């Protein structure tokens, strides 16, 4: 990355870190005031105690980094103390849900674009499905799906899919309709069938829209998988770590899990971005 591009990002990152360190002082005051006074006060003691509480209200950045280091690199990756193990549990259902949701989203969009009545009959349901808070519907889905005897991963993946099909449907409806009238007329002059028009014109034209949607979806799918772990009382997964941390007031554990989840989501989006660039390049995109 060139320095001109990195500089703005670094500046913002630095500003956030400084604000974070400063915020630790008032946030942890309830725990640290007495200790600071006992130790004799002064700004050095204030910072030393605010930034190094064992169970802080707001942990300082270096505490979070140390916690991530301890739970990612300093333990066996398959032990249940390892965040990597928990991340894998969440990530595997994220990916299954992402594939399910992506396929559902594409199929719905193909249906909506080809059958006029489907747009009128399905679209309101598609939109309504997203207005229900996932926290409300997740426990019910878990109960219902739990009865089917399917593996747990599918229950969690279903909730991911429920959340992440939506951007794909919306993006793909737009993408499949993106070929202009002239290109559609062209296929008509060839007496092309609907499926030939779909495969040779609509789907290739919709690819940029698909990738934009998938990048949104994959991040939502991860959120869905984490949310799905909360009401199940799951013992493993990022969601379980968050829940566990909040039960026992382990803020460090929560923050470490959050950062690892965010890093995983960013990595997934970045991977899709790479796939997007290479696919579109093969399809003649320039610049």
């Amino acid at each position, binding site marked *: 990355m060139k320095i001109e591009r990195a500089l703005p990002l670094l500046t913002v990152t630095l500003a956030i870190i400084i604000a974070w360190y400063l915020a630790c002082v008032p946030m942890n005051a309830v725990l640290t005031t007495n200790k600071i006074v006992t130790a004799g006060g002064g700004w050095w003691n204030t910072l030393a105690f605010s930034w190094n509480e064992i169970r802080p209200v707001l942990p300082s950045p270096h505490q979070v980094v140390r916690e991530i280091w301890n739970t990612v690199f300093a333990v066996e990756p398959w032990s249940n103390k390892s965040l990597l193990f928990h991340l894998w549990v969440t990530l595997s259902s994220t990916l299954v849900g992402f594939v399910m949701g992506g396929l559902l989203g594409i199929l719905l969009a193909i249906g909506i674009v080809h059958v006029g009545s489907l747009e009128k009959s399905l679209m309101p349901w598609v939109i309504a499905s997203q207005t229900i808070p996932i926290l409300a519907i997740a426990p019910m889905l878990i109960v219902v799906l739990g009865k089917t005897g399917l593996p747990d991963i599918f229950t969690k993946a279903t909730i991911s899919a429920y959340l992440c099909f939506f951007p794909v449907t919306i993006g793909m409806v737009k993408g499949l309709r993106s070929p*202009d009238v*002239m*290109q559609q*007329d*062209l*296929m*008509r*002059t*060839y*007496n*092309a069938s609907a499926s*030939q028009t779909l495969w*040779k*014109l609509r789907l*290739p*034209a919709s*690819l940029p829209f698909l990738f934009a949607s998938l990048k949104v979806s994959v991040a939502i799918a991860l959120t869905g998988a984490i949310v799905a772990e909360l009401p199940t009382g799951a013992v493993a997964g990022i969601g379980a770590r968050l829940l566990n941390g909040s039960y026992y007031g382990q803020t460090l554990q929560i923050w470490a899990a959050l950062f690892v989840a965010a890093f995983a989501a960013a990595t997934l989006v970045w991977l899709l971005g790479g796939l997007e660039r290479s696919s579109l390049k093969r*399809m*003649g*995109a*320039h610049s």
Partner: protein
Amino acid sequence: MSGAVILARELGLTFQTGDGAVEALSNINLDIREGEFVSLIGPSGCGKTTLLRAIANLETPSSGTLQVNGMSAEQARLARAYGYVFQAPALLPWRKVKDNVALPLEVMGLDDVAGRVARNLELVNLKGFEEKFPWQLSGGMQQRVSIARALAFDPKLLLMDEPFGALDEIVRDKLNQQLLELWDRTKKTIIFVTHSIPEAVFLSTEIVVMSPRPGRIIDVIESDLPQQRNLDIRETPAFLKIAHRVRAGLKAGHSYED
């Protein structure tokens, strides 16, 4: 030259729009014989593109009869009787030149794709550009690719809707010359929509002059220019005489406006 490729009798086409019905075509009678190069010329809104689209079965006439190769326009489209060149190249940007030309062949399931693509790209002087993507070509080259694509499945009828309208005059002159050579080599029947008088006179064996509101034919001019033409012919008295008649027709069509 024999057999009517296009036969229109009392053809009418009315569009229903937000502010009432628009009579795009009215009482069109037209015969086009095989092997002719026919230009439809007229100002904007005269229905020349609509007539071409009706022949291609992209619009449906409201009245009268229209036959293409002795069939209805729809049957002719289903039989893939014509190649259509649009105002813009309408190439698929994700396909290389050769794959764009191969598109109709894939849709129609024809064999010898590579051979047909090579032959037609050679016909429009684009040999060597097979592996380029559309954005790597100039506007004139892109439109030549779209002509090669229209010819790829060897239809006898070529419908062209102001194909060179967006190009500058120098490129347009060159492409007109090339189109005449192509017509001479392939013996296609060509119906060519334009609003340029020199283009129409230079290219055509027959010029159909149209006028707007309602869209109708006001003159059909048989050209007596020789089949073999080059651009210098535009300076000859015979050429200017035909051009004058076209201009007079266009003027007459406008006379009861303004």
